[in-house]
């Protein structure tokens, strides 16, 4: 793949709320049409799709709903969470465009976290969880990630104040973001009043419950120059997988708090020919404070084991040396896995963010590095 060969030319989102009347399909349609209009296109111009298997809606259905043109390319990103929406789908879109299989590829996504059974219901279908974990109460992400946090603290040290600095950082950005779900200020006392779920993680350490959708359009950079917005090119994409499926991921992996983020970051940096010191801001998947903190280290924004100190020093805050999750992330902005972080990165690079605009923005990085071109 060529660094800077494609651009994100259109982005769209629904409002992020808890308890939407919309179905996933309706949210995808709203976000998709919003992204197409933002790109200055009509639905008939879209000739490629990368869909997400977790939405339950394939490209046949989406093309019909959106009224798009003849599909010359369609693919499914089968990875989970933000890996699919921000890296895997974007990589497939770029490959299709570079191969001449499509001109404008739409990547749509939506989640309905308030569905019956909630977002954790699928864990109960894992035979090993049902047999060995649920009977002893080891169940659902807040508990899994809490056990990771305790192991991390054992290995590297982490105080309550340092852990609290992660959600406090993202909340400070959300306070500047009109569409963020949680905008009320959070200080240490507020954090401590947040209900404990599994020690040491409180409600404030967890991503939000969100019903919402997001979508973006990918086009060749040459075409993007004639489209409405400043060109935001894809400079680097890195994917990495660890081959530990969900049934054993949270218990049997040698180090439970390790993610393949270091490998994906190195691949993205190599493709973009930049390093962490070149970045102006970062959007990091913050399912939980502990996982965001660990990924901050894996991206090279601070030394391994120093994430707690990095956040406690305010480096990710507005005015800090490395602004992180500038629309509040998943913990205060809204949880639409990965895609709203990517969209925020695009908008920052367009220079559209008003009060929370990071000055001199040039690069953004999740597993993807974007640059204004």
């Amino acid at each position, binding site marked *: 793949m060529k660094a800077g060969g494609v651009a994100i030319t259109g982005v769209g989102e629904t409002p992020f709320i808890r308890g939407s009347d919309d179905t996933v399909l309706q949210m995808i349609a709203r976000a998709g049409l919003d992204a197409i209009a933002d790109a200055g296109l009509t639905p008939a111009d879209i000739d490629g799709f990368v869909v997400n298997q977790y939405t339950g809606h394939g490209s046949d259905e989406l093309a019909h709903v959106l009224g798009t043109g003849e599909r010359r390319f369609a693919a499914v990103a089968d990875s989970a969470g933000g890996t699919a929406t921000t890296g895997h789908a974007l990589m497939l879109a770029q490959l299709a465009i570079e191969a001449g299989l499509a001109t404008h590829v739409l990547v749509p996504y939506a989640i309905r976290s308030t569905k019956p*059974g909630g977002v*954790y*219901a699928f864990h*109960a279908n894992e*035979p*090993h969880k*049902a*047999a*060995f*974990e*649920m*009977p*002893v*109460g*080891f*169940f*659902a992400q*807040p*508990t899994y990630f*809490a*056990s*990771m*946090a*305790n*192991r991390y603290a*054992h290995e590297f040290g982490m105080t309550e104040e340092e852990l609290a600095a992660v959600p406090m950082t993202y909340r400070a950005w959300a306070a500047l973001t009109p569409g963020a779900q949680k905008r009320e200020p959070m200080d240490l006392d507020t954090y401590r009043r947040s*209900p*404990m*779920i*599994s*020690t040491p*993680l409180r409600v404030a350490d967890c991503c939000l419950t969100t019903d919402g959708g997001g979508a973006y359009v990918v086009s060749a950079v040459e075409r993007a120059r004639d489209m409405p917005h400043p060109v935001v090119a894809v400079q680097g994409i890195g994917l990495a997988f660890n081959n530990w499926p969900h*049934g*054993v991921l949270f*218990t*049997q992996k*040698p180090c*439970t708090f390790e993610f393949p983020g270091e490998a994906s970051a190195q691949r993205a940096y190599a493709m973009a020919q930049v390093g962490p010191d070149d970045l102006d801001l970062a959007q990091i998947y913050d399912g939980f404070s502990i996982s965001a903190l660990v990924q901050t280290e894996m991206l090279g924004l601070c030394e391994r084991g120093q994430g707690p100190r990095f956040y406690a020093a305010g480096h990710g805050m507005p005015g800090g040396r490395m602004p992180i999750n500038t629309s509040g992330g998943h913990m205060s902005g809204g949880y639409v896995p990965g895609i709203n972080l990517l969209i925020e990165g695009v908008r920052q690079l367009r220079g559209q963010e008003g009060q929370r605009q990071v000055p001199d923005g040039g690069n953004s990085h999740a597993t993807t590095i974007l640059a204004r071109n």
Partner: protein
Amino acid sequence: MGIPIYPVHLEDPKLQGFYDGLAAGELRITADTETGEWVWYPPEIVTGRPDATLEWRTVAPIGSAYTFTTVVRSLLPGDHKAEVPFTVVLFEPDEAPGVRIPGVLVDADGIEPACGMRLRLKPVRAGDHIIAGFAPAQ
């Protein structure tokens, strides 16, 4: 500290060996019958060896906590308010390094749970069934 009450659901009857062990006061995990290596949790297919078979073997019930968490608000399906808080540990048997067995911390009043704490198996009753419990070891 409480004990979570939630049914054991064994989709695959081959997983029963773990609970047969607890009923006998033993800790049993699965090993590859040919290589003798521990394979845990017992998978449908051993990595790269679809014809491999597993057997249940008893290990010494002593080990340490890889990690832990105290659940204050249980997210298990159903109402579990009366059972919280309880502390879950991931127990590593000394004889099977790298194997992690989830269990409830018991007999630990006044003891702060910690990674690396020494533990010994102590199966406990949870409603109408027995689950894996681990107590601080001297």
